[in-house]
């Protein structure tokens, strides 16, 4: 059905009945593909890490994390602005120990009281000494996230043989390890939160070398293009490729502000510069790739070549 047709170069097209009949077929096809993939292929689902499992697997990591939480160098100090966090030493070590005083041995209770009775600089000094002693056993200054190399996990035998001016910190660290391994710590963090808030659990886990090490070994950190990958699954968020390039390749892109800056600049280019600035906006016109996009109507091509007035030619878009 032809409503009008032109043979001039600007408007060499006709108005045709839209091929709507294809839509329900294409729609059903998409639904079928999504359903088949949902049934047959599934989706990424790697079991969660738990405090109990992680502390049983890497007890040395848990001990080291306590030292770092008490001397203020743990990864969780990046999260002090989180609601309810404020001080990781209090939230992740002191408060759990106080809450579980009924489960602590007299020796452990004395250690906790000794630590609480000391002033802050003394507390930090003990923890710092212990942290540094543990660092010596593995030859690195530890966690903090972001680096490409994995963090070695200190062995318990080496930790237990350490001596120095640690005050009550080693005993407190052993208490936390015990509470973590018997599942108390997990329940405690859930108990002090409203339902389904895994905030403290996740922050505690990220202080252990385990989570980041596992990510690095699986190539999942941002520096390893982890933004577009999923653990144990072959298709990830590939559509994050542009932010991932900004993060990995562009200078400063691995910091929060740098990441936002580069992505903002890229967005500015595509939203404002490319479509509006003369020169840029004409790129598609000169590339002429629109030829790959437009439907070619053979009748119109013939008419155009022959420059024959096309009135009276009937056509149906559905046949194109």
């Amino acid at each position, binding site marked *: 059905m032809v409503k009008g047709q032109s043979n001039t170069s600007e408007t060499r097209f006709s108005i045709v009945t839209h091929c709507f009949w294809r839509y329900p077929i294409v729609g059903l096809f998409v639904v079928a593909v999504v359903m088949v993939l949902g049934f047959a292929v599934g989706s990424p689902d790697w079991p969660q890490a738990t405090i109990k499992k992680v502390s049983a697997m890497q007890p040395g990591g848990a001990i080291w994390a306590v030292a770092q939480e008490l001397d203020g160098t743990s990864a969780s100090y990046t999260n002090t602005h989180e609601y309810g966090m404020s001080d990781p030493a209090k939230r992740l070590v002191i408060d759990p120990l106080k809450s579980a005083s009924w489960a602590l041995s007299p020796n452990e209770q004395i250690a906790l009281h000794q630590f609480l009775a000391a002033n802050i600089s003394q507390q930090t000094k003990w923890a710092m000494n212990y942290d540094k002693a543990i660092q010596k056993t593995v030859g690195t200054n530890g966690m903090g996230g972001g680096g490409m190399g994995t963090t070695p996990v200190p062995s318990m035998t080496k930790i237990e043989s350490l001596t120095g001016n640690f005050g009550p910190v080693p005993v407190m660290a052993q208490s936390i390890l015990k509470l973590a391994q018997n599942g108390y710590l997990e329940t405690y963090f859930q108990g002090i939160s409203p339902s*389904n808030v895994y905030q403290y659990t996740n922050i505690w886990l990220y202080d252990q070398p385990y989570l980041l090490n596992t990510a690095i070994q699986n190539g999942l950190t941002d520096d390893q293009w982890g933004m577009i990958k999923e653990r144990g699954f072959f298709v990830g968020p590939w559509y994050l490729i542009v932010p991932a390039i900004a993060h990995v390749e562009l200078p400063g892109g691995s910091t929060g502000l740098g990441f936002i800056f580069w992505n903002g600049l890229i967005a500015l280019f595509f939203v404002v510069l490319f479509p509006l600035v003369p020169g840029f906006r004409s790129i598609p016109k000169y590339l002429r790739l629109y030829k790959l996009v437009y439907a070619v109507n053979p009748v119109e091509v013939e008419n155009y070549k022959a420059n024959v007035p096309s009135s009276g030619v009937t056509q149906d878009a559905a046949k194109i």
Partner: protein
Amino acid sequence: MLKEEDYFAHHVTEPFRFGERRRERGFWRAFLESFAYLPPFNRMFGKVSPSYAESYWYCMGGLTFFSFLLLLVTGLILTFFGPTWWSGTHAGIVMKSMHYWSAQAFFFFLFLHIIRVWLTGAYRGKRWVNYAIGFVTFFLSLGENLFGLLARGDWESQFVSMHSDDMLFTAPFLRLISPENFTSALIIHVALIPFVLVVLIGVHVTLVKLQGIARPL
């Protein structure tokens, strides 16, 4: 000669008579086309269009919208049944997987849609406003994707929540958000961003309908 009025005449709704259409194109095409003339779709689709736009490239925006509808339907089912269902039962895992693949389809068609818009220069003139709305929708859907990942409740959720909290969510304003807080991530994913997305996509589709298909390059 085709005049401008004729060009824009394709926004006018065409009458549909089943018998007539069946004689013209056969039963099945007439049947499939009849859906476009049902009341909810009647004002949504142009029943005639310029011939150059009759390629599958011009269906990509529509398919992105269709994938969004699939995301809404599967997402609503997941919302009603909850995390224990979607991560612990066979039916739940399948539904979660369909939601995942609908998101893959959404971005797949969205990329093709953006490529089509670029190659045909469909952002020219007054259409730039809708182009910008489309891009804002795209950026927001990437955020929606991130919070969906955080609200899944698996290993990746744990790791990405902490990894992103120490990188992206330390920036001013963004630091107000706690990505490692499952409940917060879930509310942002199922209520806050979808609400804005529905509004933006509604405006985008309405403007496409009002402005019609862009002139050829």
